């Protein structure tokens, strides 16, 4: 076999020569310092082994803990979003849900406790609000008459005094909120917890009628609050601002008009004031 390997025509001979040449290369060895460092690292790893193993269960907890954290965060965000005041299509902000839900729950209690047939339609709204379904309420078209949300808001202010209620009774019964009855389809609802009504009914005919009587007062209050909050929430139109400046100018309050005009230009740099308006708002 060795003789055959020595035969130059044999491929194994070539392979053997190459192998011999390769083995003749200098015998490289790692430095002793490197050996020591690696052995020391191995000993350290073995010594730290139990510690590392003890740390593993903590890692196993990482996933459930992170899932719990994400869920908590999501719930927090959802609650936060719920508390924010949504703005409905006509620009008037809706009362925060907790403000809606509490009085609405009271209202539902007042309505749902007895079997008054007149309040059937209005029952559904407080229930929806109490469930936090503000999004559904906001999405509804908003007729000029008070909506279900308004019904809920109506309950928020204190009930009218006895005299006011008497006055309301004296008025023709044209005040009930028709939109509420239009919006909510008749629906059988589960009986709500039945606490005592907030105030004893005056003029009798049941809690539903009482609610209907309270509606005009609450509606007035709601309208004024809504108007005020709308003013705060909805930015003034450019024409309205210019009109106001022109009024100031006409009244001779030139300094104030100048300030307002400057503010207008600062806030609306892209708005081109027509010549007609310029004649009215600029100081002559």
């Amino acid at each position, binding site marked *: 076999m060795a003789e055959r390997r020595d035969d130059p025509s044999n491929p194994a001979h070539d*392979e053997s020569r190459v192998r011999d040449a*390769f083995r003749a290369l200098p015998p*490289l060895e790692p430095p002793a310092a490197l050996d020591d460092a*690696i*052995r020391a690292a191995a000993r350290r790893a073995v010594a730290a082994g139990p510690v590392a193993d003890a740390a593993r269960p903590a890692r196993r907890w990482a996933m459930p803990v992170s899932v719990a954290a994400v869920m908590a965060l999501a719930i927090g965000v959802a609650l936060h979003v719920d508390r924010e005041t949504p703005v409905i299509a006509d620009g008037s902000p809706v009362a925060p849900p907790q403000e809606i839900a509490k009085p609405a729950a009271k209202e539902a209690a007042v309505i749902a406790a007895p079997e008054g047939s007149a309040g059937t339609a209005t029952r559904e709204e407080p229930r929806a609000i109490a469930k936090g379904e503000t999004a559904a309420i906001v999405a509804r078209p908003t007729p000029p008459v008070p909506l279900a949300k308004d019904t809920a808001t109506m309950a928020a202010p204190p009930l009218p005094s006895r005299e006011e209620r008497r006055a309301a009774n004296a008025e023709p019964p044209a005040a009930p909120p028709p939109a509420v009855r239009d919006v909510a389809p008749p629906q059988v609802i589960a009986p709500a917890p039945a606490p005592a009504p907030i105030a004893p009914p005056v003029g009798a005919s049941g809690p539903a009628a009482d609610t209907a009587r309270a509606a005009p007062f609450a509606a007035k209050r709601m309208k004024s609050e809504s108007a005020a909050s709308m003013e705060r929430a909805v930015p003034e139109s450019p024409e309205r601002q210019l009109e106001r400046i022109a009024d100031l100018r006409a009244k001779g309050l030139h300094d104030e008009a100048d300030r307002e005009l400057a503010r207008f230009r600062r806030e609306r740099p892209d708005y081109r004031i027509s010549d007609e308006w310029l004649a009215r708002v600029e100081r002559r």
Partner: protein
Amino acid sequence: MLAFAAGDAGAFDRLYARHRGTVFRFVARSLPTPADAEEVFQEVWMKAIEARHRYEPRAKFTTWLYAIAHNHLADRWRKKGLSLVPLDAGEDGPVHDPADDPSHEPFAQVAAGEAMARFVAAFEALPPSQREAFVMKEEAGLSIAEIAAATGADIEAVKSRVRYATAKLREALDG
């Protein structure tokens, strides 16, 4: 390795004593400078220490260890801008020119005869994939299948690399 993973530090010493020379030569003959070789050698063993719990005796320890070494070498080649000579380059891929590389110095110092000098030059000029396969076979004594397993290459490709490397080195010896 299993004993070491179970906490026997002496087992690692025995493993290390058995493989340190071959692994170091494999790494040193695959990299341009001794400093690089020492660094990669240390990285390979550190990785083996760190991964001791993940070692499964499905393959030979040698194959597992050389797979680690192969990965670290591949990383090093990439970092050193030797991507022109990738591990998976074809057999006729670009060749590393030893004349541009001072690394041949250790070899040149020892290579006495002219044939040996040519051999060293040819060896350093081998594409990394061929050189790696050849060194794994000749230095570490791995079989073709083990080299294929360690490098993640096809068995036929490994055979081909070894054959090409051997042919080039023989030609260098013949002058």
